[in-house]
């Protein structure tokens, strides 16, 4: 016998990625705002040009500070910013590659080639994520 009671719908990839896309999109904006705000507090207001600040905002890596007039990059290069960078990379890469997957599924039909391309996208996602983390932790 059926009733109005509703079991929670199953959690499939589409549902999870739809939620993730929304959360990660918002998070990326928040992370950028946080990067700009803290950067300004740490001296960017007088010692950094706009372009450099923006690079910092969207990828808070201390290498970006080297050619600015910041005298001491101690505040700009520590574990906190490495975690921030990893979050940015994971959110951006996953958000972007998932978008690529949706486009792929729009323009191809199920079959070998779609599966192959999907796998390629998966590999690219893993690869770019690993490379980025290696760079972050190594700098």
């Amino acid at each position, binding site marked *: 016998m059926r009733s109005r009671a*509703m079991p929670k719908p199953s959690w499939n990839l589409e549902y999870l990625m739809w939620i993730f896309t929304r959360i990660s999109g918002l998070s990326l904006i928040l992370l950028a705002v946080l990067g700009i705000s803290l950067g300004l507090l740490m001296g960017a207001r007088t010692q950094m040009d706009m372009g450099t600040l923006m690079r910092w905002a969207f990828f808070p890596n201390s290498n970006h500070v080297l050619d600015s007039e910041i005298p001491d990059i101690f505040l700009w290069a520590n574990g906190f910013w490495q975690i921030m960078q990893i979050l940015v990379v994971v959110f951006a890469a996953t958000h972007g590659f998932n978008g690529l997957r949706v486009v792929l599924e729009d323009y191809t039909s199920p079959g070998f080639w779609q599966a192959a391309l999907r796998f390629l996208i998966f590999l690219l996602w893993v690869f770019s994520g690993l490379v980025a983390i290696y760079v972050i932790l190594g700098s």
Partner: protein
Amino acid sequence: MQVTLKIFRYNPEEDRKKHYDTFTLEAEPTDRVLDLLERIKGNQDGTLGFRRACAHGVCGSDAIRINGVNRLACKVLVQDLKTRQVVIEPILGLPVEKDLIVDMEPFFDHYRSVMPYFVNDDPPPAKERLQSPEERERFDDTTKCILCAACTTSCPSFWVNGKYVGPSAIVNAHRFIFDSRDQAAAERLEILNEQFGVYRCHTIFNCTDACPRDIQVTQAIGEIKKALAKGSLD
């Protein structure tokens, strides 16, 4: 006043490619675009193909593109056009059969896929099932759908991939999901939770603009996404 209609033409039985024909005729400001098509067919070219029935916006036969936007030909008056040059084309995303007539089967297949019918397995009472005016109001907006396909064929996600169920099918699922008497909400939500269900909606709002019945289509789709995320209908 004189009005010029540039109409998309395609006849698969002739060798000619898809093209446009231009017709000029006298019109009153209060004429419907459908009236103009009828007059062209009657006096200038009897081969012009288009669908129509009720001619006042309740049957959903004559969804076409008028100057680039999806409208019912019977609900747009000459005075609403704000131009005397009118481009008339078939709705997009469905195969053109002849002139303005498109194959509606893919559209109805999507409609049929969402269980667009009342389900309640309890034995019916001797009289009506009770429903409060508030419960009835909850799904009122989506009961207005006339299946004209104006929304679905205005949706870029549908243009890109015809497997997307499209706004109209979702609207018709919404009509039952939020009906307090119905018992198959979970099954319909499961259908819409799939790859070509609600997640293909990128809130572009073309559908809401196209709807000749003023249904808040994007909002209805949003309510379904919300129900999926919350796992409840409240």
